[in-house]
């Protein structure tokens, strides 16, 4: 039965990604240490410098650590998306990507499965991070942790699809440093992950506009509201549309007749 074929393949791809993740302990550790350093060091240092007014979804004054936690969750998923993209470029250079692409399944399905596998890994990382943050007394309402799950799925898919799209353009592994400089850092710093929009508006109008339309900002806001049991419709729509757009472009990028693979002759 065809449907079983899809199920076996999806499970096979997800399981392989989880196996690789478990075996690469350094990857897990660095994925966890990065946001924790931001939380324990950066946020603690900036607590006094940056006052946060009462803004939704928060109902009272909050500590800066509380404000940046959803931003750091977004950071985990952003880096995970880029890590997956890096591993796609690596797989393509090493050839194992070919094994995936010559499977008798539609390419969109193979890419979607690969994407989903990466998202599951990022969700694991996020909950471990939130567990550590809990002991640091960064605590959201309990139901918020449940509402966060579907939100993480969507934001993870959007950021993973961005990584997938980039991987269809990146020719060699060495070019990945460029992605760090031109994609990850601008996306992260020009967003609401570290400072709210009104703070950005105070300092620069154009920076405010860039941050507002940055898909990463919308993903972070979607996560922020979800963590407090609220639904941010605008952020949801923006993130969903960005996901569909990035994913469609990635499929074109990996299409044998239209995509970059053929033009590059790899």
């Amino acid at each position, binding site marked *: 039965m065809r449907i079983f074929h899809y199920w076996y393949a999806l499970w096979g791809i997800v399981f392989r990604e989880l196996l690789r993740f478990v075996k690469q302990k350094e990857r897990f550790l660095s994925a966890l240490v990065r946001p924790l350093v931001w939380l324990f060091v950066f946020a603690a240092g900036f607590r006094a410098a940056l006052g946060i007014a009462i803004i939704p979804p928060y109902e009272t004054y909050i500590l800066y650590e509380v404000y940046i936690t959803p931003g750091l969750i977004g950071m985990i998923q952003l880096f995970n998306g880029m890590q997956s993209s890096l591993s796609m470029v690596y797989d393509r250079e090493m050839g194992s990507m070919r094994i995936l692409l010559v499977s008798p399944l539609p390419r969109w399905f193979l890419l979607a499965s690969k994407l989903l596998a990466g998202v599951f890994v990022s969700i694991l990382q996020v909950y471990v991070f939130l567990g550590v943050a809990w002991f640091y007394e960064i605590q959201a309402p309990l139901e918020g942790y449940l509402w966060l799950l579907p939100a993480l799925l969507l934001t993870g898919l959007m950021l993973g699809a961005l990584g997938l799209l980039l991987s269809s353009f990146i020719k060699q592994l060495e070019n990945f440093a460029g992605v760090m400089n031109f994609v990850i850092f601008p996306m992260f710093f020009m967003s609401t992950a570290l400072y709210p929009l009104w703070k950005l508006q105070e300092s620069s109008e154009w920076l405010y506009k860039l941050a507002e339309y940055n898909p990463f900002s919308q993903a972070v806001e979607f996560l922020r509201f979800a963590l407090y049991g609220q639904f941010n419709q605008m952020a949801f729509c923006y993130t969903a549309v960005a996901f569909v757009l990035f994913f469609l472009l990635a499929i074109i990028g990996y299409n044998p007749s239209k995509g970059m693979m*053929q033009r590059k002759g790899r």
Partner: protein
Amino acid sequence: MSDIALEVVNLSFAYGKKQVLHDLSFQVKRGQCCILLGPNGAGKSTLFSLITRLYAYRQGEINLAGFNIKKKPLKALGKLGVVFQQTTLDLDLTVQQNLRYHAALQGIGRKKANANIQEQLERLGMYERRAELVRQLNGGHRRRVEIARALLHKPSVLLLDEPTVGLDVPSRESIVQHVHQLVQETDLAVLWATHLLDEVYSTDKLVVIHQGRLQAQGTREDIMCKAGVDNLNDAFFNLTQGKS
């Protein structure tokens, strides 16, 4: 059921303006081992990328076990097993984990996958090593695992893109012998790209390409006759370097 397992008809391909394959046509029958001979840069790997649908062609046709690769790509790919020139195993996973991953991609359930893995690994004398990490295997053993993987889903056509490059002589001989034995015992069709003439058996069909053009095809005798010499080395030289 047709006797033809792989059919390439008037195939041409270019990377941008650089023409790599020119009007290439040949067939491989069931139970036949076809050696694709050509020097480096002849277009062998490009041809493999077209047969595996990693690239899409605009001129010509490729049919796999009766399915056109453009019109019925999924059915055609389901009939295909491939060993690429580069190792495509995940080094950090075990032999069995690598094979199970491939079985899942081919839509084979766990129980059947385990049975097929055992059958293929035993045939290659690798079953005892199934729990080892691929990283711990030498080049020859990794190749064996890749051949086992390519055969897991019982394909009609097996593509081997220079699988013995970089291997020591005993490993090379063992792989050449194993593949020829498979062809004799089953109705598997094999397309084996190489530039090493000692891998050719007298029963093999030969297809010689140079700079993307078909130079000759047929038995060893046909090739030698066409080149006007009495040994395969000279024939290969005349048909390739001699024409550069």
